[in-house]
């Protein structure tokens, strides 16, 4: 009997080997398809046993921390699919492949020219190392409430193209998120493309992000706005916020309130105040719910005002 303890122990140690020394990643099957069709067929087979990975900057730490249990067993790496890595201009707007790296967006002449608000927001995400690795599709599909690509894309009125082996659908981005880490993506379905309608001529965009420090920081709150003014009234407005609700969100009631109103500081102030009824922030290590609520008012007002100030 005495001899059995060590062997039992040894067996347990072997089981736990991947946890010793580093917070390692447990063994799993890894697939790295080079073509979209192969990936979709594979995912169709695996269904919910397959977990998608692109850059891995969110998933790898989540597995190490035990937030994501790798019970799925199979990892399907989309990052090497060339068909999903592009930034191009079509007649109706800009299209971005889902595995386009964040740094590619930041550096793209086309993005800087046509949708500078996106380049601006991406430039403040993570660090250079993270932006070189992380992808725009990964940032959205991971569905963090604080995903920084989401507010500018929501303010731009972006849509997402979802594909599975059998079908595809286009969905407005504001219907894509369901909760923290949850999206409408069905098992076997991937986010393939982000479609941005070209910003309308007479409108302007603004993005503000508030963090605990200036560099390499997660958002306490981020706000992106699109404002179009004609004859001194709001003809178009979109307000999008990050990190103040279970998902990145649009301030629809506030938008409705402001639409058609005459532009004045008082209107903007009341409109921005109304946003505090729409947000549902939580308290966490970065800020309290109350502070987030206050800041959603302040930053919404600031973003709308900045949109109205040319050459800010």
């Amino acid at each position: 009997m005495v001899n059995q303890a060590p062997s039992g122990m040894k067996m347990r140690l072997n089981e736990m080997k991947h946890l010793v020394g580093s917070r390692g990643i447990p063994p799993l099957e890894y697939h790295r398809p080079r073509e979209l069709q192969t990936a979709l067929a594979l995912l169709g087979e695996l269904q919910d046993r397959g977990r998608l990975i692109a850059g891995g900057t969110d998933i790898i730490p989540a597995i190490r921390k035990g937030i994501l249990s790798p019970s799925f067993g199979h990892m399907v790496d989309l990052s090497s699919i060339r068909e999903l890595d592009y930034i191009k201009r079509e007649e109706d707007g800009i299209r971005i492949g889902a595995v386009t790296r964040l740094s590619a967006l930041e550096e793209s002449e086309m993005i800087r020219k046509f949708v500078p608000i996106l380049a601006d927001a991406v430039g403040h995400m993570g660090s250079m190392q993270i932006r070189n690795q992380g992808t725009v599709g990964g940032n959205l599909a991971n569905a963090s409430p604080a995903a920084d690509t989401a507010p500018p894309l929501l303010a731009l009125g972006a849509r997402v193209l979802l594909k599975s082996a059998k079908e595809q659908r286009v969905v407005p981005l504001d219907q894509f998120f369901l909760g923290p880490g949850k999206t409408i993506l069905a098992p076997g379905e991937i986010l393939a493309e982000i479609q941005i309608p070209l910003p309308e001529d007479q409108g302007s965009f603004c993005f503000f992000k508030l963090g605990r420090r200036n560099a390499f920081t997660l958002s306490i709150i981020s706000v992106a706005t699109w404002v179009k003014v004609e004859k001194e009234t709001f003809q178009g407005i979109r307000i999008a916020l990050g990190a103040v609700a279970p998902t990145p969100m649009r301030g629809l009631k506030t938008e409705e309130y402001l639409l058609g109103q005459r532009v004045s500081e008082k209107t903007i102030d009341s409109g921005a105040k109304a946003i505090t009824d729409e947000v549902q922030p939580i308290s966490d290590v970065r800020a309290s719910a109350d502070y987030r609520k206050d800041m959603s008012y302040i930053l919404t007002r600031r973003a709308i005002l900045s949109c109205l100030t040319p050459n800010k």
Partner: protein
Amino acid sequence: MKMPVKIKVNHHSYQLEVEPQETLLEVLKNKLKINSLHRGCEEGECGACTVLLDGKPVCSCLIPSPQADGKEVLTLEGLNRDGELHPLLEAFIENYAIQCGYCTPGMVMTAYYLINHLTHFSEENIRKGIEGNLCRCTGYIQILKAIQAAKKNKDAGRWW
């Protein structure tokens, strides 16, 4: 299940068998004995494991090794030439930019990229560039000085 990975590290090609759950950092450190690399936070915050992957700085601790298949890695070891210290490392030493040294290999790779690629070489842009590399000793001032000095060396032709 082992997977074949073809990878170029510091100008040499390797054909390796990796476990998919091994990260690029683990493969470089354990299989190829690249000793400069440091395992720090393992979540992309500290930058101690920074390598250049196809020329761009990334955190090697976040990259599943199969993803590095067909790619090229450069680490601090790959900078030196015929046993001669790279001018960037000399600048780090001369400017006291190394104290405990834990961040140095990652910091140097980020700095190497910035010096070669940054279009507007202002102090602000250098600071922004090294945001993903934490140093708990120097307060960054000496590191900024070292990077600026190395850039001057480069402009004067002392570089490879």
